[in-house]
Protein backbone atom coordinates (compact mmCIF):
# COMPACT_ATOMS: atom_id res chain seq x y z
CA UNK A 1 0.00 0.00 0.00
CA UNK A 2 2.28 2.69 1.43
CA UNK A 3 3.25 5.01 -1.34
CA UNK A 4 0.27 5.00 -3.69
CA UNK A 5 -2.21 5.40 -0.84
CA UNK A 6 -0.16 8.28 0.50
CA UNK A 7 -0.02 9.87 -2.91
CA UNK A 8 -3.82 9.68 -3.24
CA UNK A 9 -4.21 11.10 0.25
CA UNK A 10 -2.00 14.03 -0.74
CA UNK A 11 -4.12 14.70 -3.80
CA UNK A 12 -7.23 14.49 -1.60
CA UNK A 13 -5.93 17.01 0.92
CA UNK A 14 -4.85 19.52 -1.71
CA UNK A 15 -8.15 19.18 -3.56
CA UNK A 16 -10.08 19.95 -0.38
CA UNK A 17 -8.20 23.23 0.00
CA UNK A 18 -8.58 24.15 -3.66
CA UNK A 19 -12.31 23.39 -3.52
CA UNK A 20 -12.86 25.59 -0.50
CA UNK A 21 -10.64 28.39 -1.76
CA UNK A 22 -12.36 28.63 -5.13
CA UNK A 23 -15.92 28.67 -3.80
CA UNK A 24 -15.52 31.21 -1.06
CA UNK A 25 -15.75 34.09 -3.55
CA UNK A 26 -18.91 33.20 -5.47
CA UNK A 27 -21.75 35.78 -5.33
CA UNK A 28 -25.10 34.43 -4.09
CA UNK A 29 -26.83 34.96 -7.45
CA UNK A 30 -24.59 32.26 -8.89
CA UNK A 31 -25.22 29.70 -6.16
CA UNK A 32 -27.75 27.77 -8.21
CA UNK A 33 -25.61 27.53 -11.37
CA UNK A 34 -22.64 26.67 -9.19
CA UNK A 35 -24.47 23.81 -7.53
CA UNK A 36 -25.61 22.61 -10.92
CA UNK A 37 -22.14 23.00 -12.45
CA UNK A 38 -20.41 21.08 -9.70
CA UNK A 39 -23.15 18.49 -10.04
CA UNK A 40 -22.07 18.00 -13.65
CA UNK A 41 -18.43 17.75 -12.64
CA UNK A 42 -18.97 14.80 -10.30
CA UNK A 43 -20.40 13.11 -13.38
CA UNK A 44 -16.74 12.26 -13.97
CA UNK A 45 -17.75 9.00 -12.29
CA UNK A 46 -18.54 8.08 -15.90
CA UNK A 47 -14.81 7.46 -16.36
CA UNK A 48 -14.88 5.05 -13.42
CA UNK A 49 -18.03 3.39 -14.74
CA UNK A 50 -16.39 2.81 -18.13
CA UNK A 51 -13.40 1.23 -16.43
CA UNK A 52 -15.46 -1.23 -14.36
CA UNK A 53 -17.66 -2.21 -17.28
CA UNK A 54 -14.57 -2.52 -19.48
CA UNK A 55 -13.01 -4.89 -16.94
CA UNK A 56 -16.18 -6.90 -16.25
CA UNK A 57 -15.72 -10.70 -16.27
CA UNK A 58 -19.07 -11.93 -14.99
CA UNK A 59 -22.68 -11.25 -15.92
CA UNK A 60 -23.26 -9.57 -12.57
CA UNK A 61 -20.41 -7.13 -13.21
CA UNK A 62 -21.71 -6.46 -16.71
CA UNK A 63 -25.20 -5.60 -15.47
CA UNK A 64 -23.92 -3.39 -12.65
CA UNK A 65 -21.35 -1.73 -14.91
CA UNK A 66 -23.90 -1.09 -17.63
CA UNK A 67 -26.24 0.58 -15.12
CA UNK A 68 -23.34 2.62 -13.78
CA UNK A 69 -22.42 3.93 -17.24
CA UNK A 70 -26.07 4.74 -17.95
CA UNK A 71 -26.62 6.64 -14.69
CA UNK A 72 -23.29 8.45 -14.96
CA UNK A 73 -24.09 9.56 -18.52
CA UNK A 74 -27.40 11.00 -17.30
CA UNK A 75 -25.47 12.88 -14.63
CA UNK A 76 -22.83 14.30 -16.99
CA UNK A 77 -25.02 15.20 -19.92
CA UNK A 78 -28.00 16.42 -17.91
CA UNK A 79 -25.74 18.36 -15.56
CA UNK A 80 -23.87 20.30 -18.23
CA UNK A 81 -26.93 21.00 -20.36
CA UNK A 82 -29.01 22.30 -17.44
CA UNK A 83 -26.15 24.48 -16.23
CA UNK A 84 -25.62 25.91 -19.69
CA UNK A 85 -29.31 26.65 -20.01
CA UNK A 86 -29.25 28.55 -16.73
CA UNK A 87 -26.13 30.51 -17.57
CA UNK A 88 -27.39 31.39 -21.03
CA UNK A 89 -29.80 33.69 -19.24
CA UNK A 90 -27.19 35.64 -17.36
CA UNK A 91 -26.69 38.11 -20.14
CA UNK A 92 -25.72 41.67 -19.34
CA UNK A 93 -28.38 44.28 -20.08
CA UNK A 94 -29.33 44.00 -23.75
CA UNK A 95 -28.25 46.99 -25.77
CA UNK A 96 -31.25 46.69 -28.08
CA UNK A 97 -34.45 48.51 -27.20
CA UNK A 98 -36.70 46.44 -24.94
CA UNK A 99 -39.33 46.38 -27.72
CA UNK A 100 -36.91 44.28 -29.70
CA UNK A 101 -37.00 41.39 -27.31
CA UNK A 102 -39.68 38.78 -27.54
CA UNK A 103 -42.99 40.11 -26.37
CA UNK A 104 -44.77 36.88 -26.98
CA UNK A 105 -46.36 35.58 -23.83
CA UNK A 106 -45.36 31.95 -23.31
Amino acid at each position, binding site marked *: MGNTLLQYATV*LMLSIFV*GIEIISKVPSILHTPLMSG*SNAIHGVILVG*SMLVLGAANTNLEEVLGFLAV*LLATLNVVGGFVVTDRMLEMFK*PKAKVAPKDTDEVAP
Partner: protein
Amino acid sequence: MSRETLIDLLYLFSATTFVLALKGLGSPKRARYGNMLAAFGMLVAIVATFFKYVDGHALHHVGLILLAMLIGVIVAVPVARFVKMTAMPQLVAIFNGVGGGAASLVSITEFVHIKSTHPATYVTLEVLLGVLIGTVSFSGSAIAFAKLQELMTGRPVTYPGQQFINALVGAAALVLIVIILVQGSTVLLWILLLLAFVLGIAFVLPIGGADVPVLISLLNSFTGLAVAASGFTLGSNLLIVAGTLVGASGILLTRLMSKAMGRSLSNVLFSAFGSVITASGDAAREDGRTVKSGSPEDAGVMLSYASSVVIIPGYGLAVAQAQHVVRELAEELEKKGITVAFAIHPVAGRMPGHMNVLLAEANVPYEQLIEMDEANTDLATADVALVVGANDTVNPAASNDKSSPIYGMPIIHADLAENVLFLKRSMRPGFAGIENELLYNPKTTLIFGDAKDTLTKILATVKTS
Protein backbone atom coordinates in the same frame (compact mmCIF):
# COMPACT_ATOMS: atom_id res chain seq x y z
CA MET B 1 5.87 8.56 -24.13
CA SER B 2 3.90 5.53 -23.10
CA ARG B 3 0.19 5.19 -23.71
CA GLU B 4 -0.62 5.31 -20.00
CA THR B 5 1.42 8.47 -19.46
CA LEU B 6 -0.38 10.20 -22.30
CA ILE B 7 -3.78 9.24 -20.89
CA ASP B 8 -2.72 10.45 -17.44
CA LEU B 9 -1.65 13.76 -18.97
CA LEU B 10 -5.04 14.12 -20.61
CA TYR B 11 -6.66 13.37 -17.23
CA LEU B 12 -4.50 16.08 -15.68
CA PHE B 13 -5.77 18.46 -18.34
CA SER B 14 -9.38 17.51 -17.49
CA ALA B 15 -8.84 18.01 -13.78
CA THR B 16 -7.42 21.46 -14.52
CA THR B 17 -10.47 22.42 -16.58
CA PHE B 18 -12.70 21.42 -13.65
CA VAL B 19 -10.83 23.73 -11.29
CA LEU B 20 -10.95 26.58 -13.81
CA ALA B 21 -14.65 25.93 -14.42
CA LEU B 22 -15.52 26.22 -10.74
CA LYS B 23 -13.45 29.39 -10.64
CA GLY B 24 -15.27 30.74 -13.71
CA LEU B 25 -18.64 30.06 -12.13
CA GLY B 26 -17.76 32.79 -9.66
CA SER B 27 -18.57 35.61 -12.05
CA PRO B 28 -21.62 36.05 -14.30
CA LYS B 29 -19.43 36.99 -17.25
CA ARG B 30 -17.18 33.95 -17.24
CA ALA B 31 -19.61 31.41 -15.83
CA ARG B 32 -20.92 30.06 -19.11
CA TYR B 33 -17.44 29.82 -20.53
CA GLY B 34 -16.37 27.96 -17.40
CA ASN B 35 -19.14 25.43 -17.75
CA MET B 36 -18.26 24.80 -21.38
CA LEU B 37 -14.62 24.39 -20.48
CA ALA B 38 -15.53 21.72 -17.93
CA ALA B 39 -17.74 19.98 -20.49
CA PHE B 40 -14.81 19.95 -22.90
CA GLY B 41 -12.49 18.60 -20.21
CA MET B 42 -15.03 15.89 -19.48
CA LEU B 43 -15.18 14.93 -23.14
CA VAL B 44 -11.39 14.66 -23.30
CA ALA B 45 -11.38 12.41 -20.22
CA ILE B 46 -14.08 10.15 -21.64
CA VAL B 47 -12.40 9.78 -25.02
CA ALA B 48 -9.04 9.09 -23.36
CA THR B 49 -10.63 6.40 -21.20
CA PHE B 50 -11.63 4.41 -24.27
CA PHE B 51 -7.92 3.87 -24.94
CA LYS B 52 -7.07 2.82 -21.41
CA TYR B 53 -5.92 -0.66 -20.44
CA VAL B 54 -7.53 -2.43 -17.49
CA ASP B 55 -6.11 -5.63 -15.99
CA GLY B 56 -3.57 -5.59 -18.81
CA HIS B 57 -6.05 -5.60 -21.68
CA ALA B 58 -7.95 -2.98 -23.71
CA LEU B 59 -11.48 -2.17 -22.50
CA HIS B 60 -13.95 -5.00 -23.06
CA HIS B 61 -17.63 -4.43 -23.80
CA VAL B 62 -17.04 -1.22 -25.73
CA GLY B 63 -20.34 -1.83 -27.53
CA LEU B 64 -22.19 -2.03 -24.21
CA ILE B 65 -20.48 1.13 -22.98
CA LEU B 66 -21.54 3.03 -26.09
CA LEU B 67 -25.08 1.66 -25.87
CA ALA B 68 -25.46 2.77 -22.23
CA MET B 69 -24.07 6.19 -23.13
CA LEU B 70 -26.43 6.51 -26.08
CA ILE B 71 -29.47 5.72 -23.92
CA GLY B 72 -28.23 8.20 -21.34
CA VAL B 73 -27.85 10.98 -23.90
CA ILE B 74 -31.23 10.28 -25.48
CA VAL B 75 -32.93 10.55 -22.10
CA ALA B 76 -30.93 13.38 -20.53
CA VAL B 77 -30.78 15.96 -23.31
CA PRO B 78 -34.51 16.48 -23.88
CA VAL B 79 -35.21 16.40 -20.14
CA ALA B 80 -32.50 18.98 -19.42
CA ARG B 81 -33.44 21.11 -22.43
CA PHE B 82 -37.20 21.32 -22.14
CA VAL B 83 -38.12 21.09 -18.48
CA LYS B 84 -39.45 24.42 -17.20
CA MET B 85 -37.03 26.71 -15.37
CA THR B 86 -39.21 26.54 -12.27
CA ALA B 87 -38.51 22.81 -12.08
CA MET B 88 -34.74 23.37 -12.06
CA PRO B 89 -34.15 22.36 -8.43
CA GLN B 90 -35.83 18.98 -8.97
CA LEU B 91 -33.68 18.44 -12.04
CA VAL B 92 -30.48 19.18 -10.18
CA ALA B 93 -31.68 16.80 -7.44
CA ILE B 94 -32.34 13.94 -9.82
CA PHE B 95 -29.14 14.38 -11.85
CA ASN B 96 -27.26 14.45 -8.58
CA GLY B 97 -29.05 11.32 -7.40
CA VAL B 98 -28.11 9.29 -10.48
CA GLY B 99 -24.51 10.41 -10.04
CA GLY B 100 -24.58 9.05 -6.48
CA GLY B 101 -26.13 5.85 -7.77
CA ALA B 102 -23.40 5.49 -10.39
CA ALA B 103 -20.65 6.02 -7.79
CA SER B 104 -22.22 3.37 -5.59
CA LEU B 105 -22.50 0.91 -8.50
CA VAL B 106 -18.89 1.51 -9.49
CA SER B 107 -17.77 0.67 -5.96
CA ILE B 108 -19.91 -2.48 -5.81
CA THR B 109 -18.77 -3.70 -9.22
CA GLU B 110 -15.15 -3.15 -8.30
CA PHE B 111 -15.68 -5.06 -5.05
CA VAL B 112 -17.20 -8.03 -6.91
CA HIS B 113 -14.34 -7.83 -9.41
CA ILE B 114 -11.44 -7.82 -6.97
CA LYS B 115 -12.96 -9.93 -4.21
CA SER B 116 -11.23 -13.15 -5.30
CA THR B 117 -7.84 -11.44 -5.00
CA HIS B 118 -8.45 -10.74 -1.28
CA PRO B 119 -7.99 -6.95 -1.38
CA ALA B 120 -6.32 -5.09 1.45
CA THR B 121 -8.58 -3.86 4.22
CA TYR B 122 -8.20 -0.24 3.22
CA VAL B 123 -9.41 -1.04 -0.31
CA THR B 124 -12.52 -2.68 1.11
CA LEU B 125 -13.07 0.33 3.34
CA GLU B 126 -12.96 2.66 0.33
CA VAL B 127 -15.48 0.47 -1.46
CA LEU B 128 -17.83 0.42 1.51
CA LEU B 129 -17.65 4.19 1.99
CA GLY B 130 -18.36 4.67 -1.70
CA VAL B 131 -21.40 2.39 -1.49
CA LEU B 132 -22.71 3.98 1.71
CA ILE B 133 -22.32 7.63 0.69
CA GLY B 134 -23.32 7.12 -2.93
CA THR B 135 -26.48 5.22 -2.03
CA VAL B 136 -27.54 7.70 0.65
CA SER B 137 -27.14 10.44 -1.96
CA PHE B 138 -29.17 8.40 -4.46
CA SER B 139 -32.18 7.61 -2.30
CA GLY B 140 -32.04 10.97 -0.52
CA SER B 141 -32.08 12.83 -3.84
CA ALA B 142 -35.00 10.71 -4.99
CA ILE B 143 -37.06 11.78 -1.96
CA ALA B 144 -35.94 15.40 -2.41
CA PHE B 145 -37.11 15.17 -6.00
CA ALA B 146 -40.47 13.76 -4.92
CA LYS B 147 -40.91 16.58 -2.41
CA LEU B 148 -40.11 19.35 -4.88
CA GLN B 149 -42.12 17.76 -7.68
CA GLU B 150 -44.99 17.51 -5.17
CA LEU B 151 -45.29 13.78 -5.68
CA MET B 152 -45.43 13.69 -1.89
CA THR B 153 -46.06 16.24 0.83
CA GLY B 154 -43.48 19.00 1.15
CA ARG B 155 -44.07 19.11 4.90
CA PRO B 156 -41.63 17.34 7.18
CA VAL B 157 -42.66 13.73 7.71
CA THR B 158 -42.19 12.84 11.35
CA TYR B 159 -43.03 9.91 13.57
CA PRO B 160 -42.31 9.13 17.22
CA GLY B 161 -38.72 8.19 17.95
CA GLN B 162 -37.63 9.26 14.49
CA GLN B 163 -34.22 10.58 15.43
CA PHE B 164 -33.57 7.52 17.53
CA ILE B 165 -34.54 5.16 14.71
CA ASN B 166 -32.42 7.10 12.22
CA ALA B 167 -29.45 6.99 14.57
CA LEU B 168 -30.03 3.25 14.94
CA VAL B 169 -30.04 2.70 11.16
CA GLY B 170 -26.87 4.78 10.86
CA ALA B 171 -25.17 2.85 13.64
CA ALA B 172 -26.23 -0.47 12.10
CA ALA B 173 -24.63 0.61 8.80
CA LEU B 174 -21.37 1.40 10.59
CA VAL B 175 -21.36 -1.92 12.45
CA LEU B 176 -22.04 -3.72 9.19
CA ILE B 177 -19.08 -1.94 7.59
CA VAL B 178 -16.81 -3.22 10.34
CA ILE B 179 -18.11 -6.79 9.91
CA ILE B 180 -17.61 -6.69 6.14
CA LEU B 181 -14.09 -5.37 6.67
CA VAL B 182 -13.33 -8.45 8.73
CA GLN B 183 -15.24 -11.03 6.68
CA GLY B 184 -15.23 -9.63 3.14
CA SER B 185 -18.70 -11.07 2.52
CA THR B 186 -20.61 -10.04 -0.60
CA VAL B 187 -24.00 -10.93 0.88
CA LEU B 188 -23.42 -8.44 3.67
CA LEU B 189 -22.49 -5.83 1.05
CA TRP B 190 -25.99 -6.14 -0.42
CA ILE B 191 -27.46 -5.69 3.05
CA LEU B 192 -25.32 -2.56 3.49
CA LEU B 193 -26.66 -1.31 0.18
CA LEU B 194 -30.22 -1.79 1.41
CA LEU B 195 -29.47 -0.16 4.73
CA ALA B 196 -27.87 2.84 3.03
CA PHE B 197 -30.91 3.16 0.81
CA VAL B 198 -33.21 3.27 3.86
CA LEU B 199 -30.87 5.68 5.61
CA GLY B 200 -31.03 8.15 2.70
CA ILE B 201 -34.83 8.12 2.79
CA ALA B 202 -35.04 8.37 6.58
CA PHE B 203 -32.56 11.24 6.56
CA VAL B 204 -34.55 13.35 4.08
CA LEU B 205 -38.15 12.63 5.20
CA PRO B 206 -38.16 14.99 8.22
CA ILE B 207 -36.73 17.89 6.21
CA GLY B 208 -39.36 20.43 5.16
CA GLY B 209 -39.83 21.59 1.58
CA ALA B 210 -38.35 25.02 2.25
CA ASP B 211 -35.10 23.44 3.39
CA VAL B 212 -34.78 20.95 0.56
CA PRO B 213 -32.48 23.19 -1.53
CA VAL B 214 -29.89 23.23 1.25
CA LEU B 215 -30.28 19.49 1.43
CA ILE B 216 -29.69 19.07 -2.32
CA SER B 217 -26.50 21.05 -1.98
CA LEU B 218 -25.40 18.72 0.81
CA LEU B 219 -26.31 15.60 -1.18
CA ASN B 220 -24.40 17.06 -4.13
CA SER B 221 -21.41 17.24 -1.87
CA PHE B 222 -22.01 13.62 -0.75
CA THR B 223 -21.98 12.42 -4.34
CA GLY B 224 -18.66 14.21 -4.80
CA LEU B 225 -17.24 12.34 -1.81
CA ALA B 226 -18.60 9.02 -3.09
CA VAL B 227 -16.88 9.72 -6.42
CA ALA B 228 -13.64 10.46 -4.58
CA ALA B 229 -13.98 7.16 -2.70
CA SER B 230 -14.41 5.31 -6.00
CA GLY B 231 -11.32 7.16 -7.21
CA PHE B 232 -9.32 5.65 -4.35
CA THR B 233 -10.58 2.16 -5.18
CA LEU B 234 -9.87 2.46 -8.89
CA GLY B 235 -6.60 4.33 -8.35
CA SER B 236 -7.73 7.33 -10.39
CA ASN B 237 -6.37 10.75 -9.51
CA LEU B 238 -8.94 12.36 -11.80
CA LEU B 239 -11.85 10.94 -9.82
CA ILE B 240 -10.22 11.86 -6.53
CA VAL B 241 -9.60 15.45 -7.61
CA ALA B 242 -13.01 16.05 -9.21
CA GLY B 243 -14.94 14.28 -6.45
CA THR B 244 -13.09 16.08 -3.68
CA LEU B 245 -13.47 19.48 -5.35
CA VAL B 246 -17.23 18.97 -5.48
CA GLY B 247 -17.33 17.50 -1.99
CA ALA B 248 -15.41 20.35 -0.38
CA SER B 249 -17.03 23.18 -2.30
CA GLY B 250 -20.47 21.61 -1.80
CA ILE B 251 -20.12 21.58 1.97
CA LEU B 252 -19.05 25.22 1.94
CA LEU B 253 -21.94 26.14 -0.35
CA THR B 254 -24.34 24.29 1.96
CA ARG B 255 -23.11 26.34 4.90
CA LEU B 256 -23.48 29.59 2.94
CA MET B 257 -27.05 28.64 2.11
CA SER B 258 -28.09 27.82 5.65
CA LYS B 259 -26.43 31.03 6.79
CA ALA B 260 -28.60 32.95 4.32
CA MET B 261 -31.59 31.55 6.20
CA GLY B 262 -30.12 32.55 9.54
CA ARG B 263 -29.93 28.98 10.81
CA SER B 264 -27.25 26.45 11.47
CA LEU B 265 -26.84 23.44 9.22
CA SER B 266 -27.76 21.01 11.99
CA ASN B 267 -30.94 22.99 12.63
CA VAL B 268 -31.82 22.68 8.95
CA LEU B 269 -31.17 18.95 8.91
CA PHE B 270 -32.54 17.73 12.21
CA SER B 271 -35.23 20.08 13.50
CA ALA B 272 -38.14 18.98 11.24
CA PHE B 273 -38.61 22.68 10.62
CA GLY B 274 -42.11 23.83 9.69
CA SER B 275 -44.02 20.90 11.14
CA VAL B 276 -45.47 22.72 14.15
CA ILE B 277 -47.12 25.77 12.67
CA THR B 278 -50.79 25.07 12.47
CA ALA B 279 -51.48 25.73 16.14
CA SER B 280 -50.16 29.30 16.21
CA GLY B 281 -51.58 29.96 12.75
CA ASP B 282 -55.13 29.18 13.81
CA ALA B 283 -54.85 31.20 16.98
CA ALA B 284 -53.78 34.22 14.98
CA ARG B 285 -56.76 33.92 12.71
CA GLU B 286 -59.22 33.55 15.57
CA ASP B 287 -58.24 36.74 17.33
CA GLY B 288 -60.33 38.61 14.80
CA ARG B 289 -57.75 40.84 13.19
CA THR B 290 -58.72 42.04 9.79
CA VAL B 291 -56.78 42.52 6.65
CA LYS B 292 -57.28 45.28 4.11
CA SER B 293 -57.85 44.13 0.58
CA GLY B 294 -58.07 46.08 -2.65
CA SER B 295 -58.62 45.63 -6.36
CA PRO B 296 -55.92 45.37 -9.01
CA GLU B 297 -57.12 48.74 -10.31
CA ASP B 298 -56.43 50.39 -6.94
CA ALA B 299 -52.97 48.89 -7.06
CA GLY B 300 -52.40 50.14 -10.60
CA VAL B 301 -53.26 53.69 -9.62
CA MET B 302 -51.10 53.54 -6.51
CA LEU B 303 -48.13 52.36 -8.58
CA SER B 304 -48.65 54.98 -11.30
CA TYR B 305 -48.35 57.82 -8.82
CA ALA B 306 -45.37 56.48 -6.94
CA SER B 307 -41.88 57.77 -7.58
CA SER B 308 -40.04 54.67 -6.57
CA VAL B 309 -41.21 51.08 -6.49
CA VAL B 310 -39.45 47.99 -5.15
CA ILE B 311 -40.78 44.69 -6.44
CA ILE B 312 -40.21 41.71 -4.13
CA PRO B 313 -40.71 38.52 -6.07
CA GLY B 314 -41.01 35.04 -4.64
CA TYR B 315 -41.57 31.55 -5.89
CA GLY B 316 -45.31 32.19 -6.34
CA LEU B 317 -44.39 34.52 -9.20
CA ALA B 318 -42.71 31.66 -11.01
CA VAL B 319 -45.51 29.21 -10.27
CA ALA B 320 -48.00 31.63 -11.84
CA GLN B 321 -45.60 32.04 -14.81
CA ALA B 322 -45.86 35.79 -14.28
CA GLN B 323 -42.19 36.70 -14.86
CA HIS B 324 -42.91 38.21 -18.26
CA VAL B 325 -45.86 40.29 -17.08
CA VAL B 326 -43.91 41.62 -14.13
CA ARG B 327 -41.08 42.62 -16.47
CA GLU B 328 -43.58 44.48 -18.71
CA LEU B 329 -45.01 46.20 -15.66
CA ALA B 330 -41.52 47.29 -14.60
CA GLU B 331 -40.84 48.68 -18.08
CA GLU B 332 -44.15 50.52 -18.15
CA LEU B 333 -43.43 52.11 -14.76
CA GLU B 334 -39.93 53.13 -15.85
CA LYS B 335 -41.42 54.85 -18.89
CA LYS B 336 -43.35 57.03 -16.46
CA GLY B 337 -40.06 57.97 -14.83
CA ILE B 338 -40.61 55.77 -11.79
CA THR B 339 -37.55 54.06 -10.33
CA VAL B 340 -38.03 50.30 -10.27
CA ALA B 341 -35.88 47.68 -8.61
CA PHE B 342 -36.34 43.98 -7.92
CA ALA B 343 -35.34 43.03 -4.39
CA ILE B 344 -34.03 39.47 -4.38
CA HIS B 345 -33.82 37.57 -1.14
CA PRO B 346 -30.89 35.12 -1.19
CA VAL B 347 -33.22 32.16 -0.73
CA ALA B 348 -36.16 33.43 -2.78
CA GLY B 349 -37.47 30.68 -4.99
CA ARG B 350 -36.49 27.13 -4.29
CA MET B 351 -32.71 27.52 -4.41
CA PRO B 352 -30.31 30.39 -3.74
CA GLY B 353 -30.06 32.44 -6.90
CA HIS B 354 -33.12 30.69 -8.35
CA MET B 355 -35.11 33.93 -8.58
CA ASN B 356 -32.28 35.64 -10.47
CA VAL B 357 -32.33 32.87 -13.04
CA LEU B 358 -36.10 33.06 -13.44
CA LEU B 359 -36.10 36.85 -13.87
CA ALA B 360 -33.11 36.73 -16.19
CA GLU B 361 -35.08 34.27 -18.29
CA ALA B 362 -37.83 36.89 -18.57
CA ASN B 363 -35.24 39.43 -19.76
CA VAL B 364 -35.16 41.56 -16.65
CA PRO B 365 -31.77 43.29 -16.91
CA TYR B 366 -29.70 42.15 -13.98
CA GLU B 367 -28.71 45.68 -13.04
CA GLN B 368 -32.28 45.99 -11.78
CA LEU B 369 -31.90 43.01 -9.49
CA ILE B 370 -30.68 44.18 -6.11
CA GLU B 371 -29.62 42.07 -3.18
CA MET B 372 -31.21 42.06 0.23
CA ASP B 373 -29.00 44.61 2.02
CA GLU B 374 -29.24 47.15 -0.74
CA ALA B 375 -32.97 46.51 -0.98
CA ASN B 376 -33.49 47.28 2.69
CA THR B 377 -31.78 50.66 2.21
CA ASP B 378 -33.88 51.42 -0.87
CA LEU B 379 -37.11 50.34 0.78
CA ALA B 380 -36.80 52.99 3.49
CA THR B 381 -37.34 55.66 0.82
CA ALA B 382 -39.63 53.68 -1.51
CA ASP B 383 -43.26 54.63 -2.00
CA VAL B 384 -44.51 51.18 -2.77
CA ALA B 385 -43.23 47.70 -2.05
CA LEU B 386 -44.92 45.25 -4.38
CA VAL B 387 -44.77 41.72 -2.97
CA VAL B 388 -45.49 39.12 -5.63
CA GLY B 389 -45.60 35.50 -4.59
CA ALA B 390 -43.16 35.98 -1.72
CA ASN B 391 -44.13 35.34 1.86
CA ASP B 392 -41.61 33.98 4.35
CA THR B 393 -38.83 36.21 3.01
CA VAL B 394 -40.81 39.34 4.03
CA ASN B 395 -42.23 37.99 7.28
CA PRO B 396 -41.40 40.43 10.11
CA ALA B 397 -41.73 37.58 12.61
CA ALA B 398 -38.19 36.63 11.57
CA SER B 399 -36.87 39.78 13.24
CA ASN B 400 -39.32 40.40 16.08
CA ASP B 401 -40.94 37.16 17.21
CA LYS B 402 -38.53 35.02 19.19
CA SER B 403 -40.99 32.10 19.25
CA SER B 404 -41.26 31.97 15.48
CA PRO B 405 -39.47 29.08 13.81
CA ILE B 406 -37.95 31.47 11.28
CA TYR B 407 -36.68 33.87 13.96
CA GLY B 408 -33.21 35.07 12.99
CA MET B 409 -33.59 34.67 9.24
CA PRO B 410 -32.58 37.88 7.50
CA ILE B 411 -35.58 39.28 5.64
CA ILE B 412 -36.48 41.99 3.18
CA HIS B 413 -38.20 44.69 5.23
CA ALA B 414 -41.12 45.42 2.93
CA ASP B 415 -42.83 47.23 5.82
CA LEU B 416 -40.24 50.03 5.62
CA ALA B 417 -41.89 51.31 2.45
CA GLU B 418 -44.69 53.86 2.54
CA ASN B 419 -47.20 51.32 1.22
CA VAL B 420 -47.14 47.59 0.76
CA LEU B 421 -49.05 45.86 -2.03
CA PHE B 422 -49.25 42.16 -1.28
CA LEU B 423 -50.34 39.96 -4.16
CA LYS B 424 -51.59 36.72 -2.75
CA ARG B 425 -53.61 33.76 -3.87
CA SER B 426 -55.26 33.15 -0.51
CA MET B 427 -54.64 33.64 3.19
CA ARG B 428 -52.72 30.38 3.29
CA PRO B 429 -49.32 30.62 4.93
CA GLY B 430 -46.19 30.27 2.79
CA PHE B 431 -43.77 27.44 2.08
CA ALA B 432 -42.44 27.32 5.61
CA GLY B 433 -46.06 27.31 6.84
CA ILE B 434 -45.86 30.33 9.12
CA GLU B 435 -48.43 33.07 9.63
CA ASN B 436 -47.25 36.42 8.21
CA GLU B 437 -47.71 39.50 10.40
CA LEU B 438 -47.13 41.77 7.43
CA LEU B 439 -50.58 40.89 6.11
CA TYR B 440 -52.17 42.62 9.10
CA ASN B 441 -50.00 45.73 8.91
CA PRO B 442 -52.13 48.85 8.31
CA LYS B 443 -49.77 49.85 5.49
CA THR B 444 -50.56 46.65 3.65
CA THR B 445 -53.17 46.26 0.93
CA LEU B 446 -53.86 42.69 -0.12
CA ILE B 447 -54.83 41.87 -3.66
CA PHE B 448 -56.19 38.38 -3.89
CA GLY B 449 -56.01 36.33 -7.05
CA ASP B 450 -53.67 34.55 -9.38
CA ALA B 451 -50.46 36.58 -9.65
CA LYS B 452 -50.46 36.59 -13.43
CA ASP B 453 -54.10 37.74 -13.76
CA THR B 454 -53.66 40.39 -11.12
CA LEU B 455 -50.46 41.72 -12.66
CA THR B 456 -52.06 41.83 -16.12
CA LYS B 457 -54.92 43.91 -14.70
CA ILE B 458 -52.50 46.17 -12.84
CA LEU B 459 -50.51 46.63 -16.02
CA ALA B 460 -53.63 47.62 -17.96
CA THR B 461 -54.48 50.25 -15.32
CA VAL B 462 -50.94 51.60 -15.30
CA LYS B 463 -50.97 51.93 -19.06
CA THR B 464 -54.13 54.04 -19.02
CA SER B 465 -53.51 56.21 -15.99
